[in-house]
C-alpha cells in the first residue's frame, strides 16, 4: 500500500516538473508577465472592503490568487494589520490588484 502511494506521488511531481519546463520554453507574453509578478508583493482589495497584502504565489484562469505571508487590513485606511499567513482569494471576490513596484 505504502509503496504504491509513494510511486503515484513521484509521477505526479514529475508531471508538474515537465509541465513547468515545457511552459518555460514557449510562454506567451501574458504568462511571462504573470510569472514576472511571482513572489512580489500584491495588495488586493476584496469585495467586502478588506485589503490583503502578501507575496504573490499562484493563480489560475479564474483569478483565484494565493498570497503568502499575508496581512489583513479591515479597510483601505485601516492601519492595524492582522497576520493571516497563506491565503487563497477567490477571483470573484477580488476588486482591485496593486503591485508593489
Amino acid at each position, binding site marked *: 500500500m505504502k509503496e504504491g502511494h509513494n510511486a503515484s506521488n513521484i509521477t505526479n511531481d514529475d508531471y508538474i516538473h515537465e509541465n513547468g519546463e515545457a511552459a518555460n520554453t514557449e510562454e506567451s507574453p501574458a504568462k511571462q508577465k504573470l510569472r514576472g509578478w511571482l513572489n512580489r508583493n500584491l495588495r488586493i482589495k476584496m469585495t467586502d472592503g478588506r485589503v490583503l497584502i502578501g507575496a504573490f504565489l499562484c493563480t*489560475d484562469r479564474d483569478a483565484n490568487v494565493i498570497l503568502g505571508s499575508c496581512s489583513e487590513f479591515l479597510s483601505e485606511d485601516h492601519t492595524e494589520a492582522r497576520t493571516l499567513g497563506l491565503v487563497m482569494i477567490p477571483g470573484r471576490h477580488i476588486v482591485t490588484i496593486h503591485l508593489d513596484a
Partner: protein
Amino acid sequence: MATMVEEQNLVDMGEDKESQFDQVTYNWVDITQEFFDAITELELGELLRDELFGLFEAMSAIEMMDPKMDVGMLCNRGNNKPCTFTQAVDSCVLKLDNLTQSEVIGIIDSTYACIVSWLEGHSLAQTVFTNLYLHQPNQIVDKPLRTFCYAVYKIIEIIKDCINKALVFEEEDFQSVTYGYRLQQDITEQKIISMLKEVEDELPRKSRIKPIHVVSEKEYGDRLALYARIRFTKIFYQILSLMGKKEQLQQNLNECHTLLSRCSYMIQIVIKTVNSGEKADEISNYPNIMGFDPMVNQRLLPPTFPRYTKIKPRIEALKYLDELLNRFRTVTMITNQNGFHAALDFFLEFSRQSPCILSRSMLQIVYLPTTNRVFGVQNFADVLKDAARNFIAPPVLMPKSTLLQNHQAKEYVDSFLSHCVGLFGSLLQLTGHNRARQRDKLAHLLDDFAILQDEAERVDGFLHALSLKSDTPRSHLACFGTWILYHTLRVMVMYLLSGFELELYSVHEYHYIFWYLYEFLYGWLVSAITRANTFLMEQDVHNDTHKGRGSKKSARNKKKKSTSRPYNLEILMYQAMQNICGGYYKALVGFRMDGKILLPESPFDSERVRYEHRLLPFSSLLTPPPVHYQEFLDMTNAQMHKRNEKVTSEMLYLAGCRHFHQARNMLERALSLYLPNSSTVNEINDLLKVAKTNFVVLKLLADGHKKDSKEPPVFDFSCHQHFPLIKLI
C-alpha cells in the same frame, strides 16, 4: 493609476504593536486590468505558480470570504464596530455605576456561561474576555460587580494553573492562551476572599436600611439571588484553591468537603434564581446583555481558528457548575482508596464517565501533587512496593526478608521500582486524558511495558538465584514479572475495548477482536491472577511454618483471610467477560456462515491487513506473544469443522448461547459477593442485561429463527459501551 500609501494615522489606535510594519512604504501600481487580461490565457486547471510552490502548500491556504475559514469576514459585517471598554463607557453603552441588581445578576450568570464555554475548549478571547467589564475592572464603580470581576480573574488563573499542572489536556480539550490579558496576580488570594466576604456581608445589610415593606418582593428576591452568586463565587474560588494546593492535602480535602456542600447549596439557589438576571429568557448564541461583545477580540484570533464560539445558555452553564461540584466531590473520594490498585481502578472508573477537563486535572493533582509523592506525603515507589506485595507477595519485599541485604539485589529492586514509578505514573496520567486520546497513548505505553517486563524478569531471575542460596530458599521466579504482566494485559484489554467505545471497528472486524479477548487476553489475565493467588497462599504457608506453634491462632485467621481473597471476585469477573466475548465470537462466526455480515468488496480489502493493523501495538511485547493472523484463521476454521463433521451456524449460535448463559451465572454469583453500593454493581447489572438479552437472541437463532433472512444483525451499544446487545431486525 499609481497610488502612494503613506501611513500617518497611527494616533487613534492606542498602543499599536505593528507600528514598525506600518511604516514600510509601498509604491502601489494598479494592475487589476492587466492581471485579469493575463489570466485569460491560462488553460482550465492550469496553475501559474512559483516552482517552489506546490499543490501541497496550497492545501493549507485559508480561503478568504469563506464563512467557515475566514474569521475577518465577520468584523466587516454590519455597522456596529466592536468597541473597546473606554469607547463603550464614553458612548454610555456601558454603565459603571447604578446598575440594577438584575443587570449585575445577568452579567454574573453570563460570565459563568463564558467560563464554562472556556472549560469546554474554547479560547478565553472568545468567551470570558468578550465581557468588557473584565477589561478594566478597576474602573467599575458598582462594588459587587467590581469584586466579582476581580474574582473571575483569580478563578481563571487558578483553573489555568491546575489544568497546566496536571497536563492531561490536548488542544481539543482546553485553550490556555490568555491573549495578553493580565490575570491580576498582584491581588492575593486572601484579599479576594475578604473582598467577596465584604460584599457578601453588605448585601443583606443594605436591605435593612429600608423598611422591609418598602422593598418589593422582586427586589428582595434579586438581592438574595445576588447574595447567592457572590457567596457561590467565594466558595467556588476557595475550593479551587484548596484542591490545587500541594501542602496538607488531606486536611485541605476535608475542608473541601464542607465547602463543597455549601457551594452546592448556593448553586442550587443560583439555578433557581436564574430568571432574576436581565434577559434570562432570551435564547441566543452568546450573551445578549450590556457588557458583552462577541466581536471585541475577533482580531486577536489566529487565522486558523474555530470560528463560531457558541456560548452556553446561562441555565445550562449553571447546571454544568452544579455537576462540576459533584465531580469534585467524587475526586475527593480518592483519598479513601487503599493502595495503588484501588486508586488505579478509581481513576479508570472516573474516566469512564468522561468527566470534564477540570475535574480530570483535579484528580491528577490531588493524587500526585508532585511526581513521586502520593497525596504529597507517601513515596510513590513505596506505594507501588505495597501494591506488588499485596498482589503477589514477592519474597524480597516481605518484612523479614534478608535478600535486600545484598546490595546488588537492593540496587536492582530500587531501580526496578523507580522505573515502575515512571510507567505507572504515565498510566495514571493517561487516564486523565480524553477518551479518544487515551487509545493512542495506551498503544505507546505498551512499548514501555515491554521494556519493564524484561527488567522484571531479570530482577526475578537474579533474586531467585540469590534466594535459593539463602537460609530460607524460596522461588522468586515470575513475581515482579507476573505483576507487570497483569498490568500489561489490562492495558491490552483496555486498548481493544476502547475501539468499540470510539466506534472504530466495523462489524465485519468484530469477530477477531472478540476472539482475541476471548481466547487470549482474558484467559491470560485469569492465569496471571491465579498464579498470584497461589503465590500468596504459599507465602501464607511459609509464614505459618516460620512462626511455629506459638501463633496457631493467627494462622487460623490467615486461613480465613486467604479464602476470602479479593481475587476470587476478580477472577470471576474476568471469566464472565471471557464468556461474553466467546459468545460474541461464536455468534459472529455463525452470522458469517449465514451471510448476515456485510463484507467489504474483496479487491479492496485484506482481512490480514486489518487484523494486523488492529493488533499492531501488541507486537512490541514478548509476553504475551502476539498471535498471528494465520493462527486466527486456523482456529476459526477449526470452529467451523469439528472432527470432520460440518458445523452448522445453529451449532455456533448454540455455543454462543451457552457462553452467555455461563457469563450470566458468573455475574449473578459476583453480584452476590459485592457490597450493594459499590460502583461495580452497576457495571455488573449492565453486563447481566447484555448477557441475558444476547442469550435469548442466540437461542432464537439456534432454533432457526430468521434463518433465511440476510438482514444483518444490529449491534446496539446503548446498554454497555463495550459489549453490544445483538438485535435482529
